[in-house]
């Protein structure tokens, strides 16, 4: 690693996240201006964006090659009061909480107290949402039946394709102008609205062009003062790059990276969309620039690597926007989920792996950063050499890259009705979510607590934790004569809560469409410009909503336990089982052990449990899939947890699988922690029984000790294990390669393990930053001693 990169990396890693009130002040000031009150919403949003980018502090860090920060320094984190207006208590919590704190200084507190809170209280989207939700929705939300993704962060969950490398924003402006010209005010009743939206896009494009020019000016100024000739030349180059992109299409590798970075900053400054933003198929997008520059002799492989590394640091400088409450619990991390895709296939279906795919993996390995996250797409056409290179990095034990099945992703996208080229150009973003990059808005709307549904079913509609009826009366379970009756009640309850969730989503979707359009993001995603519609209002070519199922393993093992112990073997009565749950197995340890050890469990390639898993999966699929959203698209399911299985676990009392009150639920599609006892091949066989094609992504965690992958033979076995899972249509698999002894030691001596990165869910994080519960949970995830 070059000295420059070492310094930039260090600066990024040691910087502590802190809140800057700058964005909140600028946005509030604009909203209070006269013009803000006179213009339609899309134009207002674009002007607010412009005001922000014109006035925010900018800076070029020492030694930087790729420039621009969302704040004005590494880890300086803005707030978005138009979405979530933090209270003084919120700021205090952010400042003082043990895990994932953001420092808040006195000045910020004062500004919030005097200016931000008085203006935004009752006006932020979060306030509007909670104001509009029904009592049923609120009860379910408070009980932990589901979470609401859009109460503190904006819809985003999207990835850009190759369009920004082919066209500059000035070209996009021409497209926008064309779209305005072709508006039909005679026949189209929405033509007026469309014109305002398109005008907003024009303003937003100009705002980002100007923002880049500010950086060009700054670089020029710095160059004049710079005494070191080499650095002066670099600054001059930076100035030249920033005056070209993103106004014009990039001409070389450096400009391509900087172009993406300005676009990225634009998207994450406009609002705080989930999953930040993401360059997606970076090896595909950059390859033409890379080969051309190499041929011209204007770039060496080493320089390309250095530029990529400089680019990596920029991601790591931007922590996720601060989250509080349930949202902080469901996504407890600084990571903001930008997931760089490598490998996969090209639009024509041929293998996409190129020299740059390997170079990017080198960068991932050397940088060892939590942000950006990285993944490899493996298709049946992918050369083994590429998979093995990925395994070599996985082996180093920081959870990256995660491994995805391209052929499966394509099947999923096709099932959802996408064009084949859009599917092949797609991939996964966030944790594991499938998307048609550059063409789709795929919104995660919230996690859904499947074990909680079973708990409510077992209490005839009541939440036993708070003793309140929040669901349907689906019958007294003691009177159920068969497992089928129990399952039918579970299904009814499930549909009921999905109804409530979707009803709430419909309202929330409209709130974003009306109050918070995103004209800048809309330029980047087809077909917002041609349709004249905002990204948040159905402008994208594909508009998908997800509800993310959580606790498939726990629900399966619980229902399997009921079927086995209550109905089939009649080992205990339903009445007794329910009383065991109520008393948290108090003084019933032998019985609990029996449920843990002598009852069929998901994850062991045992059809008794696995067929129940399939029934639950199908019930969830049928409850959600195909429902329309308000944007002309449809609901789909995926199965991933981030960190919500910890929070949901706290809301669910003891479960019939032997799990005690408050313990974490299973995560993703992984078996219950410790329930899989027949090794990874059995896990893979069980998990592959899920019809992954019917989802938009599933998450499977596996953990290995470093010893297992010590030699070539071990690494080959891991590669074969992955290939087999993918042959069986698995979607994704990721690995933690650590020993539990090391993790326990890290709990005792966090100071010695600051750099210990583990795979949590769809991302890696610093182990010592995790909550103790989550730390324990990761230690518990079955540690496989052999294949």
């Amino acid at each position: 690693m070059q000295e420059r990169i070492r310094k930039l990396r260090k600066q990024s890693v040691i910087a502590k996240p802190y809140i800057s009130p700058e964005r909140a002040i600028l946005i509030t000031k604009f909203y209070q201006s006269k013009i803000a009150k006179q213009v339609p919403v899309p134009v207002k949003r674009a002007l607010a964006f412009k005001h922000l980018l014109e006035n925010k502090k900018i800076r070029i860090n020492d030694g930087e090659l790729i420039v621009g920060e969302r704040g004005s320094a590494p880890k300086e984190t803005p707030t978005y009061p138009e979405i979530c207006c933090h209270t003084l208590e919120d700021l205090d919590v952010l400042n003082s909480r043990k895990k994932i704190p953001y420092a808040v200084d006195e000045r910020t507190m004062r500004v919030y107290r005097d200016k931000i809170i008085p203006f935004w209280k009752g006006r932020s989207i979060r306030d509007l949402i909670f104001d509009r939700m029904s009592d049923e929705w609120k009860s379910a939300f408070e009980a932990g039946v589901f979470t609401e993704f859009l109460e503190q962060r904006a819809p985003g969950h999207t990835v850009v394709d190759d369009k920004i490398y082919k066209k500059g924003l000035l070209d996009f402006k021409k497209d926008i102008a064309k779209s305005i010209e072709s508006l039909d005010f005679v026949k189209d009743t929405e033509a007026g609205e469309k014109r305002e939206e398109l005008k907003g896009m024009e303003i937003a494009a100009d705002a980002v062009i100007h923002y880049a020019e500010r950086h060009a000016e700054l670089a020029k100024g710095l160059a004049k003062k710079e005494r070191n000739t080499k650095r002066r030349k670099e600054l001059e180059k930076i100035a030249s790059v920033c005056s070209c992109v993103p106004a014009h299409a990039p001409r070389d590798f450096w400009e391509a990276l900087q172009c993406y970075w300005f676009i990225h900053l634009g998207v994450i400054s406009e609002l705080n969309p989930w999953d930040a933003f993401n360059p997606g198929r970076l090896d595909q997008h950059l390859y033409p620039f890379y080969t051309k520059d190499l041929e011209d002799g204007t770039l060496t492989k080493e320089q390309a690597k250095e530029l990529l590394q400089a680019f990596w640091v920029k991601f790591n400088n931007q922590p996720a926007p601060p989250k509080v409450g349930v949202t902080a619990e469901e996504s407890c991390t600084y990571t903001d989920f930008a997931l760089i895709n490598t490998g996969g296939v090209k639009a024509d279906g041929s293998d996409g792996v190129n020299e740059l795919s390997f170079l990017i993996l080198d960068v991932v390995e050397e940088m060892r950063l939590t942000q950006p996250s990285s993944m490899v797409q493996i298709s049946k056409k992918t050369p083994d050499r590429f998979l093995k290179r990925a395994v070599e990095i996985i082996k180093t034990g920081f959870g990256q890259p995660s491994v995805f099945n391209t052929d499966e992703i394509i099947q999923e996208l096709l099932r959802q009705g996408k064009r084949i080229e859009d599917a092949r150009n797609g991939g996964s973003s966030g944790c594991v979510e499938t998307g048609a990059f550059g063409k789709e808005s795929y919104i995660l709307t919230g996690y859904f607590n499947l074990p909680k549904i079973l708990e409510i079913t077992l209490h005839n509609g009541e939440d036993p934790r708070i003793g309140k009826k929040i669901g349907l009366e689906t019958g007294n379970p003691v009177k159920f004569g068969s497992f089928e009756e129990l399952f039918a009640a579970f299904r009814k309850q499930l549909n009921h809560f999905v109804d409530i969730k979707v009803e709430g989503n419909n309202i929330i979707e409209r709130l974003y469409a009306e109050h918070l359009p995103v004209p800048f993001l809309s330029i980047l995603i087809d077909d917002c410009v041609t349709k004249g519609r905002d990204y948040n209002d159905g402008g994208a070519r594909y508009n998908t909503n997800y509800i993310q199922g959580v606790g498939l393993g726990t629900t399966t093992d619980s229902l399997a336990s009921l079927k086995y112990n209550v109905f089939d073997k009649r080992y205990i009565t339903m009445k007794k089982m329910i009383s065991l749950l109520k008393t948290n197995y108090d003084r019933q340890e032998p019985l609990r052990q029996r449920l843990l050890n002598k009852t069929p469990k998901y994850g062991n390639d045992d059809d008794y449990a696995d067929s129940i898993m399939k029934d639950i999966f199908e019930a969830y699929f049928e409850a959600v899939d195909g429902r329309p959203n308000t944007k002309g698209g449809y609901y789909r399911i995926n199965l991933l947890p981030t960190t919500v299985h910890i929070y949901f676990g706290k809301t669910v009392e003891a479960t019939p699988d032997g799990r005690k009150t408050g313990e974490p639920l299973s995560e993703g599609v992984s078996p219950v922690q410790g329930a899989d006892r027949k090794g990874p091949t059995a896990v893979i066989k069980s998990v592959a029984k899920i019809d992954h094609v019917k989802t938009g992504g599933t998450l499977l965690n596996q953990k290995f000790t470093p010893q297992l992958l010590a030699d070539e033979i071990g690494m080959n076995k891991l590669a074969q294990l992955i290939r087999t899972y993918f042959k069986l249509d698995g979607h994704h698999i990721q690995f933690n390669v650590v020993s539990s002894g090391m993790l326990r030691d890290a709990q005792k001596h966090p100071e010695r393990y600051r750099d210990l990165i583990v795979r949590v869910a769809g991302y890696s994080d610093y182990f010592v930053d995790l909550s103790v519960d989550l730390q324990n949970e990761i230690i518990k995830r079955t540690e496989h001693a052999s294949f």
Partner: protein
Amino acid sequence: MAKQGISIDRKKCSLCGDCSRVCPSDALSIAGKQLSVKEVLEEIEKDRAFYEESGGGVTFSGGEPLLQPEFLNALLKECKVRAIHTTLDTCGFAQPEIIERIQSKVDVFLYDLKIMDDKKHRKYTGRSNELILRNLEKLAESARQIVISFPVIPSINDDEENVMETAKFVSSLRNVQQINLLPYHRAGIEKYKSLGKPYKLDGIRPPTSQGIKSVKERMEGFGIRVGIGGG
């Protein structure tokens, strides 16, 4: 229930298995169970996807699989019908007819050679090695793949003489691909404890990596490929 917990009078054990059936935490368990050929095949078939991806297959090991020749033969036959790769892990102590009967259905033999000196062999295993060596010679005549497993147990079979004799013998055989050195380990101590049996090798330590290396080098001197571990 005794003061210190559960105590077991093994003299009274009739292997009925009731204790393990009622033990909720699986602290008591019976290793192994009776299965039909069909049931074993179902289990084998579960991993077919992995065999096909990795070029792997089934390893029949033990105990000693040749002690159940009928059962083994039936399973091997079915595996061949299903085009599943087969490996047999054996100590070689079996009647020649038994080996003859199954050998065409076995793709790879993992064949143990422990001690060349017959007297010592009797001392440590309770049996002469004559039959074992004869079987191996014969097996090597028919063109099967054979890999020799040589457990390296310090002070018992890692002496110069035994290492040299083993290597000499192996190098004289056709069709032997490799010798794998299996370094003695003490993972079995706990198992003996749970079985209430005395562990007789208590004084013996696992070989050092230097010790393993020296055995490897001496054997390689005979032009044999030597691996370390089960591979």
